[in-house]
């Protein structure tokens, strides 16, 4: 998984796609501006009706065309953003496999671990440590517990598990 560029609290998997999309969203604006220059010239006799109609239409027409332009631009922007696969880096909003890590806890369960210390046996301390690691790990991480005793490692929890306790 390539390391994505963080933008604020989230990022895009394919930032170049996003850049391309933003460039595309300028197209409606460009068409709108160009269109305004392409006037056909005509003679006309009945100007009074044109002016009356323009007066009553002026504000509404302008609003309509601005809204249309905004909607078209926004549409392209949204499509571009969707295509470039956004995600949130930290914390619990998106629990995707994207940011999960596989943690393998290897615990030494040989006899030497039953040596007693201040806060119980080493094994108890190891257990506490392991549970703390599990609790503080970010969401989406998976765990495997592997015991080491004598010579062959022995998987206690062989499935990769995402559950907590």
């Amino acid at each position, binding site marked *: 998984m390539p390391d994505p560029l963080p933008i604020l609290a989230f990022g895009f998997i394919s930032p170049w796609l996003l850049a391309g999309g933003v460039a595309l969203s300028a197209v409606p604006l460009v068409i709108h501006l160009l269109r305004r220059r*392409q*006037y056909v*010239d*005509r003679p*006309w006799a009945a100007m009074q*009706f044109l002016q009356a109609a323009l007066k009553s239409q002026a504000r509404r*027409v302008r609003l309509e065309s601005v809204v249309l332009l905004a909607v078209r631009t926004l549409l392209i922007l949204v499509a571009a953003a969707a295509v470039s696969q956004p995600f949130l880096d930290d914390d619990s909003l998106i629990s995707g496999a994207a940011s999960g890590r596989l943690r393998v806890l290897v615990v030494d369960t040989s006899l030497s671990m039953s040596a007693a210390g201040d806060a119980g046996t080493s094994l108890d301390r190891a257990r506490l440590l392991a549970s703390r690691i599990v609790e503080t790990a970010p969401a989406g991480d998976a765990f495997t517990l592997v015991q080491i005793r004598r010579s062959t490692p022995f998987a206690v929890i062989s499935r990769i598990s995402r559950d907590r306790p």
Partner: protein
Amino acid sequence: MFTQAGQSTAARLREAGQGLTGLEFKARQVVDGFLAGSHRGPRRGSSAEFAEHRAYAPGDDLRYLDWKVFGKHDRFYLKQLEQETNFTCHLLLDASSSMLYRSEDASLSKLETGCLAAAAIAWLVLRQQDLVGMTAFAQSLQMQLPPSGQPSHLKQIADALEQIMVRSAAASDANGAPTTEPAPTLRPLHEWCEQGWKRAVVVVLSDCLGDLSSNLEALRRLRSCRHDVVLLHVVDPAEQDFPFDEPTRFHDVESGRAQPVDCRQLRAAYCADFESFRRKLETDCRELGADYALLRTDAPVELALAAFLSRRVRQGA
């Protein structure tokens, strides 16, 4: 002025070599076709309408003797039929620059349509041995032909109309001089009324652009001189339907001012405005006792004849 969407009338006439030259001939064609029944106006049968009495003089045709009057008053009176009373028709033609407009849907400009309609009505009137006169106006009265009943008068009228068309086109080509305010189109008619014409049928051919109330004032003035007024509202189909789609810059033919417009969005409002103007013109005309008929330049000119005739028939009744 413009070589693409709106070629000047004079240029087109030069190119086509025809336009409305041969106006006299075309007018006769229109009238003959109309009377032969191709576009029948509302005619009240073939009998002439009774107009007034005329005292009997020896030698008069006894066919027209009014026997009822003889029975009541023991006097001989002849019924004078409508066709026998000579009436005068005045054609008042708007030759201002706004009439030169022609859209792509129409084969004739408003002025050309007005001229053809005027010539046709003139021929119709002359055929009946009545009198017809013509006046063209723009900012003021321009050309005037006093009424005459001679059949040769048609040629004079046709020649004058052709001159008007060429002259208007040339004038609009020469000056692009913008006037500050578009003058109400029918204002010069006040001047015509002051010439003191006897009561007659007055046919006004105009696009009636400009301030509506002052145009109506002019019509009211005509009515107050006791004329029978028929308003032929000459309109280009593009002015009524506004069939444009793309962003357009409209150049005023009178003042030369340019107005950029996004046509597709404006069409509904434009058509509504135009229609309310037209309807108000029509209603107010009828209130004045004048006749109103819409003459679109893509419609057959015979409609003008029908409107004129219906007025005559109703007048006699």
